[in-house]
């Protein structure tokens, strides 16, 4: 085990912790920006440090294609290759294959797929995924799991869950650098509480450094989503970090943190930036919108980031979706927003003001009190009283928050 996880503060199920990884001492809850190809699109590594990024996620599938894991290994690992002194996490590569390649197929041996280079059939086994990730050298590596869409039902879900459990042993056996890299197991089981429970128990028996909740953020309804998170966090060990994969929106992160999750990753903040959308406490701000053209305010007057301190919505309006600088500046702000959200979660849990933080967050996002029902339900389970920011149920239609 190459990590230490110390809980510094709690509020009911929510926890704030210090996660000591080989390359960085992190504070949780934390958001990990996705740097697919060894770079966060349009940002320099010193900007990422300025913003407060603690862990960057790299995609094994992409890195294995270019520049290849062998090259990264030869040049001293991904930290050195991209000159990122802080922590890194790589995924297993399986999810990317299944989602990006039409011809991916999963068998007991591994994920078979057609090479995007020469079209030849290829096979990614658990052993190989770990070997590639050992070469890349991230602080946290992910087990190869059998990924199924959350919207799928029936025996395939059960098969995938049991296969994920069989593969974890192959991953553990293949892992050559357990003193430098932490292998996280991934809880599968779809939306079925019984399967999820079997998977959690199976993984916990393996005593891994950390656990991820997989198979979510794939189009399932929000009520199913939070219930799976709540169920898994309740039965995963207290002393290990919990990572909800592919999540997400600021609201999802607040809810999952209240339920006891610690780590998140999502392409959303940087992807949406490239389309001209900024994250703000009220929801989102679409800078392309004509109303921004003569708006001399910053994106968010409460934001302390370099972009909000210097630029007006009017100027950003004329950059977004046209000039590289538009997506650079918006990505900077959006990641700053996510990092600030992480810091606020951490400090409010430690200071015992977490419920107030949650209420303030929800009030800004839902000024009319129309907090979605799934959030209300989740918060009840999390033991966070949000009645002060909710109008009584069924009196207001459920409008999605957006300010542009």
């Amino acid at each position, binding site marked *: 085990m190459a990590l230490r996880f110390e809980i510094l503060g709690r509020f009911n199920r929510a926890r704030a912790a210090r996660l000591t990884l080989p390359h960085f001492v992190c504070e949780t809850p934390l958001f990990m920006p996705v740097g697919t190809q060894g770079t966060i699109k349009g940002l320099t590594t010193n900007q990422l440090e300025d913003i407060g990024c603690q862990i960057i996620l790299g995609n094994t599938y992409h890195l294995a294609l270019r520049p290849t894991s062998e090259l990264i290994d*030869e040049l001293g690992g991904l930290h050195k290759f991209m*000159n990122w002194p802080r922590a890194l996490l790589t995924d297993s590569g399986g999810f990317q294959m299944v989602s990006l390649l039409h011809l991916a197929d999963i068998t007991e041996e591994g994920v078979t797929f057609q090479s995007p280079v020469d079209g030849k059939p290829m096979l990614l086994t658990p052993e190989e995924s770990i070997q590639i990730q050992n070469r890349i050298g991230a602080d946290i590596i992910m087990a190869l799991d059998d990924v199924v869409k959350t919207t799928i039902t029936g025996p395939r879900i059960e098969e995938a869950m049991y296969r994920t459990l069989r593969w974890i042993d192959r991953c553990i056996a293949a892992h050559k650098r357990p003193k430098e890299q932490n292998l996280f197991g991934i809880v599968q089981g779809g939306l079925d509480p019984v399967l999820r429970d079997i998977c959690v128990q199976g993984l916990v028996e393996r005593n891994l450094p950390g656990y991820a909740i997989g198979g979510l953020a794939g189009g399932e309804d929000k009520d199913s989503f939070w219930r799976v998170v709540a169920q898994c966090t309740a039965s995963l060990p207290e002393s290990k970090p919990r990572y909800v994969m592919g999540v997400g929106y600021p609201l999802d992160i607040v809810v999952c943190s209240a339920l006891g999750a610690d780590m998140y990753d999502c392409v959303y903040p940087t992807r949406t930036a490239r389309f001209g959308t900024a994250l703000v406490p009220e929801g989102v701000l679409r800078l392309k919108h004509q109303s921004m053209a003569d708006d001399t305010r910053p994106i968010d007057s409460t934001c302390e980031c370099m972009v909000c301190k210097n630029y007006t919505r009017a100027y950003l309006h004329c950059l977004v979706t046209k000039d*590289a600088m538009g997506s650079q500046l918006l990505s900077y702000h959006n990641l700053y927003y996510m990092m600030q959200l992480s810091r606020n979660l951490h400090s409010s849990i430690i200071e015992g003001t977490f419920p107030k933080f949650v209420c303030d967050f929800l009030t800004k996002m839902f000024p009319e009190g129309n907090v979605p029902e799934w959030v209300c339900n989740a918060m009840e389970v999390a033991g966070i009283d949000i009645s002060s920011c909710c109008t009584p149920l069924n009196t207001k239609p459920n409008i999605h928050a957006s300010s542009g």
Partner: protein
Amino acid sequence: MLQEAELSIDDGAQESKNMKFAIKTFCKSGRARVGLLQLTTLGNKEIIEIETPALLLTTRKGLPAFIPPDHLPFLPSPDSRLLHFSPMHFMECPDLKTISKIGGVHRLLGLQGYGFVAVPRDSILSLPECNSSNKNGASFETPCGRFLVKPLEYMKMISSMKPDLWVSLADEVHASVTVKRNKVSVDRTITWLDTCISLKPRDGVLFGSIVGGCNVEERTRCAQEVAKRNVSGYYIGGFGLGDSIDERSTYLHAVTDSLPKEKPRQVCGLGLPEEVLQGIAAGIDLFDSTYIYHLTLEGFALIFPLNNDKCTQDPQLCPMASDYTKINLKATVYRKDTSRIVEGCTCYTCQNHTKAYINHLLNVHEMLAQILLEIHNTHHYLSFFRLIREAITEGKFEEFRQKFIQNRRGHLLAASPITFELESPVR
């Protein structure tokens, strides 16, 4: 639109307060000179002192194409504190009222301590379209379409944007136009200068535009007429529009010989190192950096030595990947190259990243490649200008120029013919 009061007529006194220019060294045997441009920025009244010959950083809508604003302070300072922009970049938005409300370009771009130089033509996004220009105004081809800009409109832009330096509207024509059309362009440029002078805002320093194409008489006539006007410096336009580099010196000399020595001269359309040296030899003080922009887009990094040493690059390097001055980081030879673009370079890129990483970023089309390349190339080209100033100061400019050109010619000839930069679109 703008208040009438904002377009008050200037008495000339304010202007000299905002900019001072002094020649420090004249080249003994030629026209090259080292000067000091002192500018009180309209952003925060900070005084910046730029040694000339100097490079103005090319921008898109006021910011470098890729270098993020929080990285600008890492570039050599004060060398990097003059930013070039075209008011035409803001044709679509924000509107002038909004820019004015924000407080002009300094506030718009969050760069108070920088000097902004407004030039209608930028050679990248805003190109003169001489067939559509007419007696009323100059036409420009931009990504948002073609615009005819009249002197009065142009002055409204200047008044709202409040640049530190600005050049008068010119009718820049292609080298292939008729003698008659070229003559017209000179007449119009002078008329528009008079209009600009009459509408000049209180602050901001005016450089008078000089055109005249590839005609010595017209070049001389235009320069002499502009020299009679109350301007603080000169902008020499009409180059890089189909003219040949070999004949250019004649026209440049005709212009600079007609201008008073004590005022600064800016040029447009000269970008390659040879062209910059040619301009400096003719007595030009300020250049733009479109060359860097094009290099960066193509994946090139400047590598020519910045001391008197011989170029230290690997002799085994394939000529496709390199000439004497630059390397193409897309080339597969850099796949595993963990060295820096230039060993010892103090730029952010070389301090932090290897050639192998930039090669990877280019291969996978990641924007960070352009960010890192623009940082290094800008840093390197600014150092090239410092070297030139040192050579002039030491009285060795001609020697420096000849050596540089010979080295590069030698390498260009040794390289495969298709890498000939002077004939490639990289200019």
